[in-house]
């Protein structure tokens, strides 16, 4: 019974990890940039949702679309104004340092604006739960979190695989020059990709805020998680992020259940190093550009 509950909790956490990582994975796959400010954007999403819910009483799940819209704009400007500049002027590795600097700035701003205290979002339906067969319980919050994560991942997969802009993004990732020769405005595509990534990070922040209490310094963990998920699953695809996220969720709940609550990160890291050595392109290995 305990095993079943562990697996269920792991899956819920995994869905959240997957959604938080998919944007990171997209940027890594398409732009080749490791965005160390990704976790900070997740936290911005959580705080924006908290603010909307707290000030207007809007249901937190309904807050997701406006939060995504705001963060899309933020991501677009951030990429065109700063990251592209860093990549042009020095190197991809240096652009990583720029994103680290931005992460520090954002974390500091969040502390200044919202205080360093833990916040949590608890809508009216937060305390209802379902009792499944055999004493396994799952609360409504977790069901809706998992559901929303899966729905958003599905939507992103649809956009990437079936729509025009998705095709353009994949083409640019495969070969920038060829895409530009076909009339693609590569810089615009990069910025849009970054915007999409930021939007999904924001959505995951909103869901994370419903499931767990959060504080600004958590951002570093979310960035590291995203990296592990991407390495586990494979770069640049929603299905890879989903697989990696679910695995990571299961591993970390199982580790804290079986070995001890202090060890999930150590275990995660062990698996990360093993994966990087054995199969650096991830389990699915369908990266479009990042594994170059």
């Amino acid at each position, binding site marked *: 019974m305990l095993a079943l509950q562990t697996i269920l909790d792991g899956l819920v956490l995994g869905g959240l990890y997957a959604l938080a990582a998919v944007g990171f994975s997209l940027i890594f796959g398409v732009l080749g940039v490791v965005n160390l400010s990704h976790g900070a954007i997740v936290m911005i999403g959580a705080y924006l949702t908290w603010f909307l819910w707290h000030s207007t009483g809007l249901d937190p799940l309904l807050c997701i679309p406006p939060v995504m819209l705001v963060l899309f704009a933020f991501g677009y400007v951030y990429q065109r104004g700063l990251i592209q500049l860093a990549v042009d002027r020095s190197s991809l590795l240096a652009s*990583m340092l720029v994103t680290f600097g931005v992460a520090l700035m954002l974390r500091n701003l969040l502390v200044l604006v919202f205080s360093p205290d833990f916040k949590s979002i608890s809508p009216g339906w937060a305390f209802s739960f379902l009792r499944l067969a055999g004493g396994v319980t799952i609360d409504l919050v977790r069901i809706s979190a998992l559901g929303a994560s899966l729905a958003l991942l599905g939507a992103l997969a649809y956009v990437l695989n079936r729509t025009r802009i998705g095709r353009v993004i994949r083409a640019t990732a495969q070969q920038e020059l060829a895409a530009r020769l076909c009339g693609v405005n590569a810089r615009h595509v990069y910025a849009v990709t970054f915007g999409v990534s930021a939007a999904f990070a924001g959505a995951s922040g909103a869901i994370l805020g419903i499931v767990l209490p959060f504080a600004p310094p958590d951002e570093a963990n979310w960035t590291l998680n995203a990296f592990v998920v991407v390495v586990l699953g494979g770069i640049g695809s929603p299905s890879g992020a989903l697989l990696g996220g679910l695995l990571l969720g299961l591993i970390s709940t199982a580790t804290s259940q079986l070995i001890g609550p202090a060890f999930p990160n150590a275990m995660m*890291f062990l698996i990360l190093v093993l994966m990087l050595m054995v199969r650096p392109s991830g389990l699915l290995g369908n990266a479009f550009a990042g594994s170059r």
Partner: protein
Amino acid sequence: MLREAVAKHRWWILLAIAGLAALAFVPFVLMPFHVRVGQLILLSTSLGLAWTLLGGFAGYWSFGHTAFIGLGAFAAGLFETQVLGLAFMRAEPLAGLGLGLLVGMGVCAVAAAIVAWPILRLRGIYFAVAMLGVAQVLAELTNSIDAFKGSMGLVFPRIPAFGLRQEAVFYYLLLIATAAILLIAFVVKNARIGHGLAAMREDEDTARMLGVPTERYKITMFVLSATLTGALGVIYAHSLGYITTGSVYRTDFSLNMIVYNLLGGMGTLLGPMIGAVIMVLLTQVVLGGFLNLHMFLTGAMLVALVLAAPKGIVGTWQAWRRRRASAAS
């Protein structure tokens, strides 16, 4: 190779010796507080140089070098308090410190040699993030396993020596460490291995194809860099007197080691030194007044730095000199 390098750089070498000799008089002239600032500058300089042995010379940017500061500090601290005992440390403080240094460096060397095998197969961003992970995990293990005393903290005994004040003792220790690391870095850069590393940094596959033993070189540099960083960690821990996980496993250490090099000039010896001096003066003196904006300003500085001078001060200066030389001819 080394002899030619010494002849070519003889003015720089004389300048370095004169500079280090001049720095030796600082504790007699300045106030204790300023000696502490000097301590910090020396620590930062030597950390930047230790990092550059791998990051600057071979192009393997470690984002988690603070792992070795922490590892060295805790290895030495546990050895001194648990194995030697406080009674021995009180009776023979200098011998205890020396033994602690040896243990700290030894543990770092062994740990680096073990970690090097899987991790140095990764390149670029993957290596950087893997090192970030190493630091994170070591910090968490130190904190959560009670035997390591990471959450309770370790107390280091005072090191009275030659009738000097504590801050002067650590100032001199760090001065000696800086001189030693500078010497090692100079020798490495100008020896055969240094040229091999430079080739690797430009193109590892080509270097390997041309017969550079890349695998051996980078493992050697990783272990050397880790060992020296560990030694600095031991000295730093003693200068603090009391450490917990958070005071030696500090992400900002890792970050700063990169920033010093980036600001000064990657792959040079002068670069990390200039970078460290500027950054310490800036953060301690200028930013000291904005405590709650500290992180924001550090981040903003980092961004501005990468955008404004991607090659660093030394790199920009060299490019300017080269341009002038070509314009003159």
